[in-house]
C-alpha cells in the first residue's frame, strides 16, 4: 500500500449529504476484475451527461459543466471536502479505488459510513473526521477563495489552513501507523499465525459444529 505522510493540495467541495457508493462509482464499473483505472469513472453519473460503460472512450463523452469536478478551479484537487455520512451504501472497495485513482489523497467530512471509512485506510486514502461546524466553515472558505489549499499532516494529526492556523484530528493509532508506513495488514496478521492456529485448535474443540463440513456437493 502507498504510504501517506503530508499532503498539500487543492480542496474540492462536494456539497451533499449521504453521498453513496453508487454516486462515487456506478455499478457497471464493478464488473472489472482489476483494481485500477476507476478514476475516469469517479462520480460518473454526475460528471458526464451520458451513461458510462466500462469500455467507453471517456475522453469522447460529454461533460457536465455544472458538476464541481469539472470546474476549472478544482482541477488537480487532491483533498475532498464532504458532508455527513459520506460513502454510505455498498461495501465496494471500488469507491476508494476510484477516489484514489483520480488523485484524491484525503477526505474531510463530519461523518462516514463504517465500511467505506475502513476501506479508505486499506488504500492509502485518509478519511478525516472534523466537527460539522468546522466542515461548514471550510465549505465557505473554499467557495470564497479560488485555488483554496489545505495541508494534511498525518504524523502531526493536523490540517493546516492557508493562514497557518491548524485543525487537529483524531486517527486510530493502528491505522495511522499502517498508513504512515504503507504496511500491509495481511503480513501483520500473519506474524500472529501461531496464535491463530492455537485459537483454531481450541475453537474446533469448543464449537465442532462450525467445522462440520459435509460435502453438500454430493448431497443433492
Amino acid at each position: 500500500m502507498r504510504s501517506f505522510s503530508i499532503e498539500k493540495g487543492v480542496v474540492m467541495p462536494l456539497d451533499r449529504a449521504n453521498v453513496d457508493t453508487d454516486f462515487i462509482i456506478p455499478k457497471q464499473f464493478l464488473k472489472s476484475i482489476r483494481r485500477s483505472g476507476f478514476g475516469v469513472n469517479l462520480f460518473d453519473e454526475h460528471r458526464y451527461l451520458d451513461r458510462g460503460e466500462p469500455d467507453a472512450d471517456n475522453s469522447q463523452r460529454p461533460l457536465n459543466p455544472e458538476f464541481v469536478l469539472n470546474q476549472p478551479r478544482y482541477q488537480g484537487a487532491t483533498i475532498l471536502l464532504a458532508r455527513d455520512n459520506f460513502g454510505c451504501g455498498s461495501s465496494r472497495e471500488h469507491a476508494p479505488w476510484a477516489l484514489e485513482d483520480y488523485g484524491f489523497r484525503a477526505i474531510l467530512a463530519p461523518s462516514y459510513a463504517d465500511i467505506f471509512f475502513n476501506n479508505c485506510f486499506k488504500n492509502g486514502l485518509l478519511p478525516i473526521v472534523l466537527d460539522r461546524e468546522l466542515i461548514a466553515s471550510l465549505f465557505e472558505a473554499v467557495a470564497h477563495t479560488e485555488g483554496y489549499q489545505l495541508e494534511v499532516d498525518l504524523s502531526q494529526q493536523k490540517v493546516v489552513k492557508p493562514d497557518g492556523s491548524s485543525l487537529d484530528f483524531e486517527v486510530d493509532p493502528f491505522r495511522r501507523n499502517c498508513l504512515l508506513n504503507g504496511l500491509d495488514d495481511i503480513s501483520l496478521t500473519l506474524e500472529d499465525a501461531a496464535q491463530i492456529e492455537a485459537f483454531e485448535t481450541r475453537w474446533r474443540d469448543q464449537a465442532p459444529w462450525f467445522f462440520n463440513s459435509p460435502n453438500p456437493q454430493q448431497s443433492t
Partner: protein
Amino acid sequence: MKARTLYDKIWQAHLLKQRDDGMALIYIDRHLIHEVTSPQAFEGLRMAGRKPWRTDANFATPDHNIPTTSEERSQGLAGIKDPVSKLQVKTLDENCKEFSIFELEMNDERQGVVHVVGPEQGATLPGMTIVCGDSHTSTHGALGALAHGIGTSEVEHVLATQCLMQKKMKNMLVQVNGQLSTGVTAKDVVLAIIGQIGTAGGTGYTIEFGGQAIQEMSVEGRMTVCNMAIEAGARAGLVAVDDTTLEYIEGRPFAPTGALWEQAAANWRGLVSDEAAEFDRVIELQAEDIAPQVTWGTSPEMVAPVDGLIPDPIQEQDATRRGNIQQALDYMGLEGGTPIQDIKLDCIFIGSCTNSRIEDLRGAARVVEGKQLAENIELALVVPGSGLIKKQAEVEGLDQIFVSAGLQWREPGCSMCLAMNADQLGPGKHCASTSNRNFEGRQGFRGRTHLVSPAMAAAAAIHGHFVDVRDLV
C-alpha cells in the same frame, strides 16, 4: 460475570487478540464469496504466493451479474451477453477451482443470491462470525450470527488469515413492541425503523432487534429486517436465537446432525442478551403504529406511511435537510405534499436478498391472484432468491399466478436490485421495488426507486399506483 449482550458474547468468543491500539483480531467462521468483490482478492493472494487459510470456511456463488431469463441461463456462461460480466463470473469459477472452494455455480439448482443461499443451505449458523464482500451480509444476523460486510482488501485478509482486524462496535437495541397489523410486514418494520433513526443512526453500532413483533416473525422476516440494518448505518444486525431459529436450521445440508446437533442446539440457546445487559442506545417502536411504508426519495430514510404525504420542503426548518429533500424530489420527479398513493408506477420488481424468499413470494402472489397488471406497468419482474425457492414456488403454483397476472417469472439472481445484469430500470421510470436501496441510479441510469414490501409491490402492480394493502386484506 458482567451481563452481556448477544453481540458481546459472540465477539468475546471470537476474540483472538486484543491489540493495545484498540484493534482486535477476530476469528471468522464463515466467509461467503460472490463474483463482484472477490477477483481482486484472489489476484492479491496469488501475487503474494498465499493460500486460503481454511478452505472449508469458504462458500461461493455468483449472483450479481448473471442473467435471469431462462433462455440465457440455459446456455450457461455463453448466455451472459456482456463480456465483462461473463469474465467476472468465469473468474469466480476458476478461482474456486484453483483454491478448492465450495461453489454453487450459476446453473446449480441451489444457486441464488448469496445472502439467501447461505441460510438456506445451513451455511449460516447461530453464533458464527460471518463476513462477505457485500454490505448486506447483515442479513445473516437473523439467525443469531455476527455477520457483516467487508471490502475487497478484507476479503483477501480473511482468505489468507481466517481473521479480521476490527474494532468493537457499540451496542444498540431496537425494540419493536406489540403486534403488527394485518398487511404490515418485516419490510415495513425495518423501513419504519430507518425512517426514525436515519441512515446514519446505526453507524458505529451493532443493532440487536427485539420485542414481540420481532419474536413473532419467521426467520425469513427477521432476515428482511437484518438485511437493512446496513441501511440504518449498522454493519451488523442481530436477532436472539429461539425455537424459530432452531426449527429453521435443523436438517439443512450444512447444519450439524445427530449428537452434534443436540450439542450445538443446546449451546445456541444461550445466544441471547442477558436480561441485565446494557445497551449504549435503545430505540422503541410500537408495532401497532407501523403502517405499510413507501420510500419517496433517494435514501431509505426518505420514507412515509402509505396513507401519508410526500414531505413538503417548504415546511422543513433546517436548511440542509430542506436542500436534501428538494434534491431528492427533483431527481424523483415528485412534488412535495403529494399523497403517496398518487405516485404512478412504470415497473415492479419483486426480488433481492431483502424480499425474495418463499414467504415473500406467497405474500405477493396472494395479492395478484386472479387479477391483471395495470396498463401503465411496462415491466414487472418476479425474481426468486434461489433455485430452491423457485422450485418450491412452482410446486405451489405461484409462478402460474404471477404469469397469469402478467408478471414475468425469472431465474434467481440479484437482477434489478442493482441492475448489473440486463435487468434495468429505464431513465425517469418509477419502480415499486422490494429491494433495499433507492439511491440515484441504483436500479438503472436515472431510474426512480420506491422501496416497499412484496405485498405492496404486488398491489401497485395491479393498480398502477400505490395502494394501502391493509384495504385489500
